[in-house]
């Protein structure tokens, strides 16, 4: 058995599919350079970034094969394509951003660094999870993950830096981290482990006399998570992360128990909390107003949304093409609004391609979950996929004004180290889990 699993292989599907993001990286960057200079004038040195990226992902694929890794062959190409779009967008925005403010001078270089780190993390997770028995200790230390989750949230509250009225960051020396991105993962690990242990109990009922109640004691840690989500909302004013945590929490509870009542009760209480927050804080009221009609205050509070609408609308069906639009009219376009920049320069075809990639990625993750033999792996794969799905929906829904806008990153595409590295880690875990023994 062991010998069979370690026998080298050539991951042909993955390798061939990876040629697409590789070519996209090279052609896209060439276009950005040519448009930026206004002349067909480039050297190989200009596109070393793309060559390095293409080389790196192909190396990852080949090294997986040499290692005898037999997991999913579609996840990596999809992730790489999304990451290429993000990398190209940052390369394209960088000169314009740098002209706006000194703080943006290193944006493109930093993004490349994070991207490289993300790829390394993905590679390490896939290569080392087996030998290090990662699944075992992820499962075993569930209360550690719970504590880590709560501690990170509390730390953000105490020492967090406020940006645009929301506490999203912790500064550690020169490094700024976004704890919500890490919490997202620890939360999923804890829930997967806890729900796997208590799956039968949570699905059952608790009889009090003639009343049939949910098994309240087993839901206690759930209640703590619920409270932590609300704390994120109220204390940190971080509606995006609160939505994300709550979405993950409810979805996993439903997936494990099969009981819609939990979702119903959860949604109701969350809606009530949102309503309370809305009446208590004017910031949330402004946010709702900017969602329904940013034109009521197009100069101040609605400015970003109005500019994002303009950008998406100017893209039309085909987009202006890389470098030919004006996405930098949107403040913070490289983080919250990178999707609008894609909409402007790649058009509806580009945005639909991006959401199709996310969709396939998530469905692939669910397929891995369904095939898994082990209950914990099932829930972990489902939970991690769900976290990617919900995060994508929250930010794209916010940018396109389907829901109120919240400051959260678009996985693999937005600028931001914590987000890139964590999401690559998630894909690494999904890849590893896809290679574990399958259910008959």
């Amino acid at each position, binding site marked *: 058995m062991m010998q069979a699993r370690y026998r080298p292989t050539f991951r042909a599907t993955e390798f061939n599919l990876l040629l697409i993001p590789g070519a996209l990286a090279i052609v896209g960057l060439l276009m950005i350079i040519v448009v930026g200079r206004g002349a067909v004038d480039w050297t190989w040195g200009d596109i070393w970034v793309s060559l390095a990226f293409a080389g790196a992902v192909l190396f990852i694929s080949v090294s997986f094969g040499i290692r005898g890794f037999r997991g999913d062959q579609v996840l990596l190409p999809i992730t790489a394509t999304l990451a290429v779009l993000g990398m190209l967008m940052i390369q394209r925005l960088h000169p314009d951003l740098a002209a706006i403010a000194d703080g943006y001078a290193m944006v493109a270089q930093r993004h490349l660094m994070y991207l490289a780190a993300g790829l390394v993390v993905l590679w390490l997770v896939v290569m080392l999870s087996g030998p290090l028995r990662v699944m075992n200790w992820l499962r075993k230390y569930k209360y550690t993950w719970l504590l880590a989750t709560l501690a990170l949230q509390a730390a953000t509250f105490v020492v967090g830096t406020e940006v645009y009225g929301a506490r999203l960051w912790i500064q550690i020396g020169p490094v700024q981290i976004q704890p919500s991105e890490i919490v997202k993962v620890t939360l999923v690990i804890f829930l997967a482990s806890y729900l796997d242990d208590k799956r039968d109990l949570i*699905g059952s009922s608790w009889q009090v006399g003639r009343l049939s109640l949910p098994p309240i004691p087993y839901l206690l840690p759930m209640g703590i998570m619920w409270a932590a989500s609300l704390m994120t909302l109220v204390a940190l004013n971080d509606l995006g992360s609160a939505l994300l945590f709550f979405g993950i929490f409810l*979805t996993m509870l*439903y*997936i*494990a*128990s*099969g009981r819609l009542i939990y979702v119903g009760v959860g949604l109701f209480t969350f809606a009530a909390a949102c309503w309370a927050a809305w009446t208590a804080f004017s910031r949330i009221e402004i946010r709702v107003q900017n969602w*329904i*009609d940013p*034109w009521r205050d*197009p*100069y101040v509070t609605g400015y970003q949304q*109005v500019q994002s*609408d*303009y950008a*998406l*609308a*100017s*893209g*039309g*069906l*085909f987009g*202006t*093409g890389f470098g*030919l*639009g*004006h996405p930098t*009219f949107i403040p913070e376009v490289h983080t919250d609004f990178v999707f609008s920049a894609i*909409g402007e320069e790649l*058009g*509806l075809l580009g*945005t*639909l391609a991006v*959401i199709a990639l*996310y*969709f396939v990625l*998530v*469905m692939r993750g*669910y397929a891995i*979950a*369904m095939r898994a033999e082990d*209950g914990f792996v*099932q829930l972990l794969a*489902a939970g991690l996929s*769900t976290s990617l*799905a919900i995060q994508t*929906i929250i930010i*794209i*829904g916010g940018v*396109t*004004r*389907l829901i109120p806008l919240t400051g959260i990153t678009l996985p693999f595409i937005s600028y931001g180290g914590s987000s890139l590295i964590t999401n690559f880690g998630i894909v690494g875990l999904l890849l590893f889990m896809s290679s574990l023994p399958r259910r008959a």
Partner: protein
Amino acid sequence: MQNAFRGLLLLAAAGLISWGLFSSDGISDARWLGILGLAWLLLLLGTRIPLAPTLPTFNRTIIRTGLVLTTVFVIVTAQLVRIQVVEGDNIYYKTATAPDGEIIANPRTASGDLDVARGRIYDRNGVVLADTQLVDGQYLRSYPEPASACVVGYYSPFLYGASGLELAYEKELSGAAGNNPITRVLKSLLHRPQTGADLSLTLDASLQGQALDLLGGSRGSVVVLDIRTGEVVVMASNPTYDPNQLFTTSANDAAAKAYWQSLIDDPAAPLVTRGNLGLYTPGSTFKTVTAGIAIEEGLAKPDSVYEDNGQLDIDGRVLVENNRPDEARDQWTLAEGIAWSLNVVLAQVGLQIGGTDLWKYGPRFGFGEDIPFDLPVAESQLANGREVLSNKNALADTAFGQGQIQVTPLHMAMIAAMWANDGRMMEPYLVDTVTDADGTVTRQAAPATWKTPVSPQTANDVEQMMINAVQNGSVSGAAADGYVVGGKTGTAETGDGTNHSWFIGFIGDPEPRYAVAVVLEGGSGGLSSAVSIGRDMLAGTIQARREEAS
């Protein structure tokens, strides 16, 4: 059965989204979100497929979750289709006015604009009013006939946006609309500049210039209409400005900024185009309307006799008459009341009509209505509200054109034209044709009747009374040799001691051809100069058209 039902639900969701996307273009964002919400519920129900009970719970819940996520992605797709394609043009050109009065528009409409061969604007004889020249790879806008600025407007992409037709026809001029859609898509795909469509106007540039010359140092407006079609031949507003000085190739043009500031600071408001946007008290020119309503209602005829001994007591207020040509006469017909502009006679006519009926006629004459036009038009009013006219003094004041009544010069010209056009008030228009880059006419204006406030007989009576006023009354200064001219003057008290001088009239040979409205603002010109400007414009227009025809 259940499968069919779910299929129906999915179809209903698809239908609902398509309906929301395509049928009603004026749908608000909030309503669209409601439609999407409903469609999402239908999708959720429609995708609740039955799952084999033998499947483990975990597989069933994962499949259900996957289906829910699928429906969410469908909704996101619908939203993207709406924002990027279906509503794309509307959002792209959407503007808003900030509380401080500044206009917010898509900055892209400005930044890309020197790459666009913006369409030219021609007058009715092919004279170029707005030109585009390619200089060093940039398309520069210029205005060879600055006198037409009050119609054409300015185009200032980097600083002040646009106004007038430059704003109203932005899509056509910039090539975003009006061209062959296939050419447009191809050009946008290949990143070639769009070529804008040209506008041909009904305006006559030389007559427009003549109108501004005649206005000279007076503040005011002249509007000349073709009676039978509603074509706007002249729409002048004085003082005006030079749009050439507002077009810049960058946002840092000190001269343009200084010029703009001087226009803003000028108390004479040169940026306000008075013809369509200036609201004035019409004074006695409104008497034609009062008389017309009374005749239409069968309350009076041109030869009906009214008592006017120099004053009229209305509920204790004494209205003094200064206009009688013969102080010894006490009996005057309605026609004489129009010819000599007798306030006491028309006050009595107004009281005969009554406040309720006068108010009822307001919308029929276009008061309180949006006049369909190529440029925005300020809304005329009879009074601030219906209840005002229940006061007899207010009613009498309104009947001879004082009180709270407000009109635009364009509207008064339309009323003058209507009397000479058998009671048909035509839709005014400025843009005759829109011609795209391939030379195809994509839009051709067609004359249309907007309102018919009175019968042809009534209109004819008023027309004859106006001709009589020129031939036998106080408007004799409007007579032009060889033509039939009808007219009515007005002196509108502004409340600050100064008066607006009005003239409305028409000219025919002998069939009525052109109508005019002239207004000279408070104290800036006398009644006789309003009449002579009106006469010169009518005669000048009919002669110019004759020369054109021969």
